[in-house]
């Protein structure tokens, strides 16, 4: 009995197996995503029905929803934590830490990651971070309320607003755990991919998913330390009386703050030096998944493989040179702003290369419409929609008008949040058989896709219209302005669509957990895919391959070669 218990702990809790660690990340990220989704529902509740009482919610949030009406302080905490949880704890953890760990060794032909112990450590470092972030809702003053970007002075002066006190402290502590975990993970990715590829797997034969994870690992390692530095300086400003980010002359109530000489702009530079690469940390894996999924279900080699790889590298490099486009209205030199416009618009080139390559892969293919390929097509759609509005916002002359409006909210929910999320969904539908040895229900998967796709557009497309009409991004009650009152029906529509979107995700959660036990048993290669990961047994054990690791004889995209009987040649066949 004692012995069996030990087996459970080492297999499911403190596991060294990259696949189990990947699944642990899935569980954590999905739980966090569920909470982030509830926060979004609450945000939309306020915007759809401003200041209307919901007495039953008082039981859940006695302070934030006293007598059932949402307080402005609670609203601000809600969008702050929605952004933080979704960006870091769902959209980074699921595609990168979850799928990166699960897929990299399988796709490159390795028994495990380069540093299995570090891998386990990185998971158990992010868990306390997640717990601290959630707990911060229940401390005095509530959760952090300075936005997911934690701009000073709101984040730097403890007495600024209720959320600036304990909530912001816990936010910083939670983020430090996250950064530590994520950089450990990135290190593991880079070293594993460079060193542990099976025989014959040259870099230019790697699946695009692994290419994306490789560049993401580098981006994380180079960008997260900037956030760590900023967070440390911010902590000193908050608690030890320094003035890195705080200028002179700040009054809180009637009290003059002792700080002088600092500049909030410095925080913005440090934050966005991380913040923009972070967007691509979320996007690049989704691009990789989409490429692999579309090739498999179009039964076509991915179009322009080399240009895809170079585009990933170009996006990764440029992502470090565009952070200033988040700061066009911050008072920085307009000349510097123009430089950031140029680099920002330059990123449209490799992005367009990817979009066109997907379109050429799809064009005139006989697409097999599975849940995975539908979500892959969804990525292309959201990516193009969000990419086009990115060109508006990347131009400073236009951005000055649209900054801090719902146009921006609509834009990034398409390109980063939406494409990232759809990519992750597609990846779950595609690789689930390898994860659990069983198939997800395709019927539920398709219902999930159509609800999510339609509701997603219904929620976020009208936001562009709200933004152009002048609705501010973080506003608690738009109806206080007469000129925003006519937009209330649009807000109500968005709120209803958001409820549908959230409900649609329950189908996914049901499918995910029930199929683990009741799904149809999977074969080793249920999609007839060519990638190396499909050469493992249907439910690979620790070490991944029973016998020798197969060598890679070709790239993973040999579909429908002319003159061959079978419509694909696996990577591991000569």
């Amino acid at each position, binding site marked *: 009995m004692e012995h069996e218990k*030990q*087996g459970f702990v*080492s*297999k499911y809790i403190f*596991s*060294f*197996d990259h696949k*189990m660690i990947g699944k642990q990340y899935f569980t954590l990220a999905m739980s966090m995503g569920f909470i982030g989704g509830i926060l979004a529902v609450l945000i939309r509740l306020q915007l759809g029905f401003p200041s209307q009482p919901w007495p039953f919610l008082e039981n859940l949030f006695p302070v934030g929803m006293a007598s059932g009406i949402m307080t402005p302080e609670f609203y601000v905490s809600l969008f702050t934590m929605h952004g933080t949880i979704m960006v870091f704890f769902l959209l980074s953890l699921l595609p990168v830490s979850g799928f990166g760990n699960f897929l990299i*060794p399988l796709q490159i032909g*390795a*028994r*495990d*990651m*380069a*540093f*299995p*112990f570090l891998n386990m450590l990185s998971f158990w470092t992010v868990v306390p971070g997640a717990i601290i972030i959630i707990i911060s809702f229940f401390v005095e003053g509530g959760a952090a309320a300075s936005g997911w970007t934690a701009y000073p002075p709101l984040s730097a002066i403890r007495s600024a607003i209720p959320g600036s006190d304990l909530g912001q402290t816990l936010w910083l502590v939670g983020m430090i755990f996250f950064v530590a975990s994520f950089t450990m993970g990135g*290190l*593991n990715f*880079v*070293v*594993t991919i*460079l*060193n*542990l590829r099976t025989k014959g797997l040259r870099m230019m034969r790697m699946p695009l998913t692994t290419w994306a994870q490789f560049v993401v690992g580098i981006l994380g*390692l*180079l*960008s*997260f*330390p*900037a956030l*760590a*530095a*900023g967070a*440390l*300086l911010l902590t*000193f400003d908050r608690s*030890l*009386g*320094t*003035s*890195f980010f705080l200028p*002179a002359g700040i009054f809180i109530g009637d009290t003059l703050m002792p700080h*002088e*000489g*600092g*500049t909030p*702009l*410095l925080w913005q*530079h*440090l934050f966005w*030096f991380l913040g923009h690469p972070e967007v691509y940390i979320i996007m690049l894996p989704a691009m990789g998944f989409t490429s692999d999924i579309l090739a498999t279900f179009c039964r076509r080699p991915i179009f322009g493989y080399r240009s895809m790889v170079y585009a990933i590298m170009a996006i990764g490099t440029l992502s470090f040179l565009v952070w200033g486009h988040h700061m066009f209205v911050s008072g920085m030199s307009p000349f510097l702003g123009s430089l950031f416009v140029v680099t920002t618009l330059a990123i449209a080139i490799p992005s367009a290369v990817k979009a066109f390559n997907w379109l050429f892969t799809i064009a005139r293919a006989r697409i097999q419409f599975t849940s995975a390929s539908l979500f892959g097509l969804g990525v292309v759609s959201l990516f193009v929609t969000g990419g086009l509005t990115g060109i508006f916002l990347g131009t400073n002359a236009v951005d000055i008008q649209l900054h801090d409006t719902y146009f921006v909210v609509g834009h990034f929910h398409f390109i980063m949040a939406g494409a990232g999320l759809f990519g992750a969904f597609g990846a779950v539908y595609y690789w689930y058989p390898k994860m659990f040895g069983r198939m997800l229900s395709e019927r539920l998967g398709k219902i999930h896709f159509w609800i999510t796709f339609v509701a997603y557009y219904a929620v976020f497309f009208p936001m562009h219209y709200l933004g152009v009409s002048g609705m501010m991004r973080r506003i608690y009650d738009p109806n206080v302005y007469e000129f925003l009152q006519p937009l209330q029906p649009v807000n109500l529509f968005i709120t209803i669509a958001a409820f549908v979107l959230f409900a649609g995700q329950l189908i996914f959660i049901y499918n995910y957990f029930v199929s683990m036990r009741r799904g149809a048993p999977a074969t080793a290669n249920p999609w007839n895919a060519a990638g190396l990961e499909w050469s493992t047994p249907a439910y*690979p*054990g*620790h*070490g*991944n*391959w*029973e*016998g020798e690791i197969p060598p890679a004889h070709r790239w993973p995209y040999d579909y429908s070669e002319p003159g061959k009987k079978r419509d694909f040649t696996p990577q591991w066949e000569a």
Partner: protein
Amino acid sequence: MSSTAAGAAAPIDAARTPADRRHINRLGLLVALGGITMLFAAFTSAYIVRSGGGDWTALELPPVLWMSTALIVASSLTLELARRAFQRGSLPSFRSWSAATAALGTGFLASQYAAWLSLNEAGIYLQSHPKSSFFFVLTGVHAVHLLAGVVALLALFGLAAAGRLVPGRSDAPTLTAIYWHFVGGLWIYLLAVLSLLG
């Protein structure tokens, strides 16, 4: 292959040969040093930006920093001697040189502490002015990294005592040395930033 449930407990080394493993460990360390470099690059850029502010005040660096510098340079030399002794297979010599390194490293930390005290005695604290803030932050974060090096040296002693350091096979002394030299070089860099910029 250990694909059974019993095998799930222990980590599987994916490296094919000991040489592979050594290469992987060294690359892992170099990548980690890249991350640390970015941390200090971020601090440096913050320092440069902040030094353009109107309230920037010059700070006379405590002379004891030169002693810190001498100690850390000497510690790199002794650790290099220790590493070479280890490669020659001379474990006693390795032990005494790495003990000297740990002592010099601890001396460096004490010397840095003396520098902080001497600033405090002159009435200069962390929050006094922006340059003093940066001085304490940069030297403090650096000291934490050096402390990690001292811990690594102590771990080496532990390994050696347990007979698990085998010349020609164990790479831990070299890894520790790479890290140690890096942290030493980082100090020279920080000293240059603090004395030349602003």
